[in-house]
């Protein structure tokens, strides 16, 4: 396994080891490029994962303090927990459910397709579906996505069978067990799914794709990748010419270290990435690195979400088997006649008793609430994933009233639902309820959004420097050797779970970086 010197300024430093950072690190290493990947969290093995919701949460989640503001429901229910993401090697690919959906072609061109939506800062991506198709294909092959590459889809569990029965009764056609990066048969040294029901807690089978055991070990095997766990980056440094020179991070002992770099790729998720850029302000970049246009942290997106849980007269045991066991895609299209632009996916979801008590109706108490929980074993559930509107005022900014243990300002996450988001959520709630009522639900519950798992858009990709933070390659408009490699580059969010797109972009970015470096253009 490689070990690089702190003063080795020929390495690429990748900050974060999740879908973006973990994939980029491996891809670069495969091309012979030396990489130091810095991960704030610890390194675990699949055997360390815990089939217990709260214990696993304490084990894996990013629980450093953050604050919230805005009218979104999460700020009321979970004021210090805007997002449920992971701090560990593998990042949120340890926790993700595995849904791997491509953007629809029109979603790359949201501004052109949806028009000028009042209050929304819509923009077309500088890339399109045709350009991304081969990178998606590589990502699906890498991740072993079911329903692609002749990989059979997973069998549906009880939760899915109810969704399927209700949805088809309503006339929905695109109903199936999804495109999941969970092995339906052994592949790529990973076992097949045993339907544990703990996808969110880290897959103990290793059946679900994660950079932790899929990408990173392969990168390390090349001798070109060194992953440093418990390396919490506090600042990205630059020279007088405005070129990035390296990063400062706190190691596991809290000691500050300086790793030099030829270039830096930032992949800390849409909350930490802008926070680090803003915290890296200097005389040359007084408003933060790559923030000359004032765009860093803006256009925070989190998908229009919500859940529908239904109670039946007979047992379901929704917790048995994959968490996202199936999908209804008919509403993912753009059809403004429904009263909003963009679309949404409906995907099964399941929570165990501990999380159901916390998230079903946050703040509720008394007999109405407990009567529903008493019927837990008779419940089915689905989650709404819809495109939300980017708004300049929805943003990650520094809350200078609070410092982390390294003295750096923490992140505040501000979000207000757009009228389009609210119209979409209402429609999705109505359709979700109708699905379950079609198969005899005795009670339907509309559950407000959980802390965000899809955090997007805070360093968005734009053709023009004044509209965003990075160009079509994820290279910051302002700093030539600084790249962003996570979901924060999303110009718009689409209706799809973002991981596949993040991975496809990272593979594409690695190819571009290798070209730049070999031609000595960077």
């Amino acid at each position, binding site marked *: 396994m490689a070990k690089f010197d702190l003063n080795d300024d020929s390495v690429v430093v990748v900050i974060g080891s999740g879908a973006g950072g973990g994939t980029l690190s491996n891809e670069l290493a495969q091309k012979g490029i030396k990489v130091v990947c810095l991960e704030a969290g610890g390194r675990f093995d699949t055997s360390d994962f815990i*089939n*217990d919701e*709260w214990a696993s949460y304490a084990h894996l989640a990013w629980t450093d303090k953050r604050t919230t503001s805005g009218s979104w429901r999460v700020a009321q229910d979970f004021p210090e927990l805007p997002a449920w993401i992971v701090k560990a090697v593998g990042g949120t690919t340890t926790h993700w459910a595995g849904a791997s959906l491509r953007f629809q072609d029109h979603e790359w061109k949201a501004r052109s397709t949806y028009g000028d939506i009042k209050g929304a800062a819509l923009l077309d991506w500088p890339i399109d579906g045709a350009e991304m198709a081969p990178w998606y294909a590589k990502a699906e092959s890498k991740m072993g996505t079911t329903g692609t590459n002749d990989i059979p889809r997973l*069998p*549906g*569990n*009880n939760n899915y*069978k*109810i969704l399927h*029965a209700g949805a088809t009764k309503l006339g929905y056609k695109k109903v199936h067990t999804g495109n999941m990066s969970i092995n339906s048969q052994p592949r790529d040294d990973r076992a097949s*799914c*045993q*339907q*544990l*029901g*703990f996808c969110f807690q880290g897959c*103990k*089978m290793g059946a679900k794709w994660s950079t932790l055991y899929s990408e990173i070990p392969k990168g390390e095997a090349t001798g070109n990748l060194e992953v440093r766990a418990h390396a919490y980056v506090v600042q990205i440094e630059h020279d007088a010419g405005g070129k990035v020179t390296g990063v400062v991070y706190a190691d596991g002992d809290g000691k500050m270290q300086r790793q030099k770099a030829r270039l830096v790729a930032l992949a800390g998720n849409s909350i930490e990435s802008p926070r680090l850029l803003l915290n890296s302000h200097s005389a040359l970049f007084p408003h933060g690195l790559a923030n000359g246009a004032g765009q860093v942290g803006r256009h925070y997106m989190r998908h229009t979400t919500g859940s529908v849980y239904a109670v039946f007269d*007979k*047992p*379901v*045991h929704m*917790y*048995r*088997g994959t968490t996202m066991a199936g999908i209804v895609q008919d509403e993912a299209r753009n059809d403004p006649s429904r009263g909003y632009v963009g679309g949404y996916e409906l995907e099964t979801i399941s929570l*165990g*008793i*501990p999380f*159901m*008590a*916390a998230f079903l109706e946050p*703040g509720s*108490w*008394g*007999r109405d*609430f*407990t009567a529903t*929980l*008493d019927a*837990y*074993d*008779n419940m089915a559930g689905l989650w709404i994933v819809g495109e939300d509107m980017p708004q300049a005022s929805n943003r990650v900014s520094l809350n200078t009233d609070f410092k982390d243990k390294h003295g750096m300002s923490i992140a505040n996450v501000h979000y207000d639902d757009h009228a389009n988001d609210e119209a979409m959520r209402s429609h999705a709630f109505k359709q979700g309820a109708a699905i379950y009522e079609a*198969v*005899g639900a005795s009670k339907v519950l509309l559950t407000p959004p959980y802390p965000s798992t899809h955090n997007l858009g805070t360093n968005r990709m734009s053709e023009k420097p004044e509209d965003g933070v990075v160009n079509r390659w994820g290279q910051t408009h302002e700093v030539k050797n600084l790249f962003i490699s996570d979901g924060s580059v999303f110009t718009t969010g689409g209706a799809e779970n973002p991981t596949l797109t993040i991975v496809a972009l990272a593979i594409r970015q690695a190819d571009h970086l290798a070209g730049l470096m070999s031609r000595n253009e960077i």
Partner: protein
Amino acid sequence: MRVVDKTTRVGRREFLRTTAGAAAVAAVAPTVSGQALAEPLKTVTSPAAATLVQMARDLYPHDALPTKFYQSAVSIIDTEVSGSADTINLLADGAVELDAAAKKLKGMPYAAIADEVERVAVLKSIESTPFFARMRSGMVTALYNQHDLWIKFGYEGPSFEKGGYLHRGFDDIDWLP
């Protein structure tokens, strides 16, 4: 379908505590009272502890759940608040506050009010207090994260050691039309 047995098997102590049998043993075991805890609380004395256990059940009433789960939940919250000078008096003061509210509305201490609906009315009157907020939010984890309680809701908990659900009913639904 493979269904889960949610039945509560009442242990001897619980049986004695909650039935007429309790009266028979009360003479020889006078320490057994309705809501008493096996272990004393850290921040609350005995009568107030029983008030808190009653409040705990009224917040999240599940008739099938034995009292021991509510007692454990109160103990967990008690341990949490005992760790900070800011909260160490929260439960003891809160129990006094709750009894005061009960006396004001119903003319008697909280635990003496026989009707759940009337106790809930008292709880609603203190809903905006930090004490209520801590008890309510604390209960969500202190109650529902007790592992031996899960099965009573039909939730089977960890599955990896049992080989997951692939061969144990993940797709065994048999009642769909």
